[in-house]
């Protein structure tokens, strides 16, 4: 009997000692890494295309005339052999056509069978060094894109990852979905953001066409170099536009089921009752009244009490905001949005 108790105690003790080790199995994953370096001679007007998945892309301008792409493939698994197998599933395919070079991450999806519960993973990271004046098109899925510095035409197609642009000159075309974006400055271009959590653009200049679809907050700062701005926003809350005075622009807003706030005051269209009170019809078609400026409060769990909804609240409403001797035009088309404009 005593022997049996001793035996079981030993087993329990061993299990207890092994428990922390088992719980921290993630930290014991073996890592295998492979680096691929591609050097590309850049001709005039050449375009470089990069397409990646499951990893980040960092873009940086350098003073050389050629481009260099460094790809790091990292495989993690409990067994080192398995980690090495994982990185072998990934290849970097290079293709060239006149005037363009393309680099693409190719994953052998038939060969690889990753067990998510085992903690296995594979990460493919690009660091791109480019000269000035290059046309660059970057596509990424399930990874972030960071533009540290870039000079030239830039096209970004990003899905399921965040975007950060620190310094970029030249027109930019962005097509981003499900992620956030933090951009210091944009000088002309077309922007498409869908299903984003947050978009911040510090300074907008040149001619910009922007579309924000279904997302969280959008912060846009205008600059005195803004030539034209067209915004289409659907289900964005809030859409904050600042520095209107600096941009010296006339603002035209077409809104459907949206709340428009100018300098903390809710903008209303002139209704019949207001015309009666004011006696004289106003020249501009907007009037400001004090209202709630807090647009961030959450709906919580309370039930919506939809009374007979007035048709005026549901139909489209147009607002015009003249700022005097404006030479720039800002056109905003919004539905299901809260728009916050500040001087």
């Amino acid at each position, binding site marked *: 009997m005593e022997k049996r108790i001793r035996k079981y105690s030993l087993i329990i003790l061993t299990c207890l000692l092994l428990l922390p080790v088992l719980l921290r199995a993630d930290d014991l994953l073996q890592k295998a890494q492979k680096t691929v370096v591609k050097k590309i001679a850049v001709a005039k007007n050449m375009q470089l295309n990069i397409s990646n998945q499951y990893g980040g892309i960092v873009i940086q301008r350098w003073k050389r005339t050629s481009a260099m792409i460094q790809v790091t493939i990292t495989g993690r698994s409990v067994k080192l052999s398995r980690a090495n197998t994982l990185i072998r599933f990934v290849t970097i395919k290079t293709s060239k056509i006149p005037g363009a070079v393309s680099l693409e991450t190719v994953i052998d999806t038939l060969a690889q069978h990753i067990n998510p519960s085992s903690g296995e993973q594979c990460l493919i990271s690009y660091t791109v060094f480019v000269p000035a004046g290059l046309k660059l098109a970057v596509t990424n899925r399930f990874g972030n894109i960071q533009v540290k510095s870039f000079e030239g035409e830039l096209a970004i197609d990003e899905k*399921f990852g965040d975007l950060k642009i620190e310094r970029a000159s030249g027109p930019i075309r962005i097509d981003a979905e499900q992620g956030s974006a933090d951009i210091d400055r944009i000088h002309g271009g077309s922007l498409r953001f869908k299903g984003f959590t947050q978009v911040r653009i510090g300074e907008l200049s040149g001619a910009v066409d922007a579309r924000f679809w279904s997302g969280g907050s959008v912060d846009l700062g205008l600059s005195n170099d803004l030539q034209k701005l067209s915004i289409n926003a659907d289900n964005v809350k809030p859409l904050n536009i600042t520095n209107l005075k600096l941009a010296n622009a006339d603002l035209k807003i077409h809104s*459907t089921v949206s*709340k428009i706030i100018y300098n903390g005051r809710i903008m209303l269209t002139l209704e019949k009752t207001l015309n009666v009170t004011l006696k004289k019809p106003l020249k501009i078609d907007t009037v400001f009244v004090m209202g709630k400026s807090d647009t961030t409060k959450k*709906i919580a769990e309370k039930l*919506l009490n939809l*009374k*007979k909804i007035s048709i005026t609240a549901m139909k489209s409403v147009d607002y015009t905001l003249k700022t005097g001797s404006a030479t720039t035009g800002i056109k905003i088309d919004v539905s299901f949005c809260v728009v916050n404009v500040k001087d």
Partner: protein
Amino acid sequence: MENEFEKYLHKNRARFEEGSPSPRVWEKLQRNLTEQHARRQRIIRIRRISLGIAAGVLLCIGAMLLLFKNNSRLSRNAITQNTMRRDSTIESQKLLAEKIELDSTERIAGITDNKTRQSLYSYAKRIETRQKQLAVLQQLNPDLYARSQKVLMDLNMGYNQLQKQLPGSLDQQKVLKALIQNLKMQELILNNQLQLLEELQIPDNASDGKKDKKI
């Protein structure tokens, strides 16, 4: 056997055959005959008029009966149509609710990781509740409701694509994270829409407060 009248006729026969009634008698007879004819004509005219009136009344009654019959058929049709419309509205609402619930179940299909399943299910349920709240807009303003659903349908399509990508994915954790993010976004959008609708609604003073719809 002759009676007295016949005896009188035999006795005065000659007088009867020779003589004729006086012009006064003829005149009286003539007048009586004319008057009788005129009376008969008048009676015939009155009868014709009466018959005409009777026919007219009968026609009117017939027409009214026809109209009444048609009206009742129309109102019956209207009632049937209204009932059908109400039934179809109830049916469509039922279908919508079923679809929403089905979406919640479908959203976690094929996801083996328990923690993620729980997260996704929790978001899916919250979306379900919000969608049911918003469904009242479908009756009030179908166009606006359709517009409100556009972005959500788009996000749903993205969700379905992610779900398909999951089994062959090199990093499933990233895909699962994107799935959760997608549902989070859908919930945020629904919250924003409901809040905006609540803030922008202008209560109609003329409408009876009892007609308010609680959802």
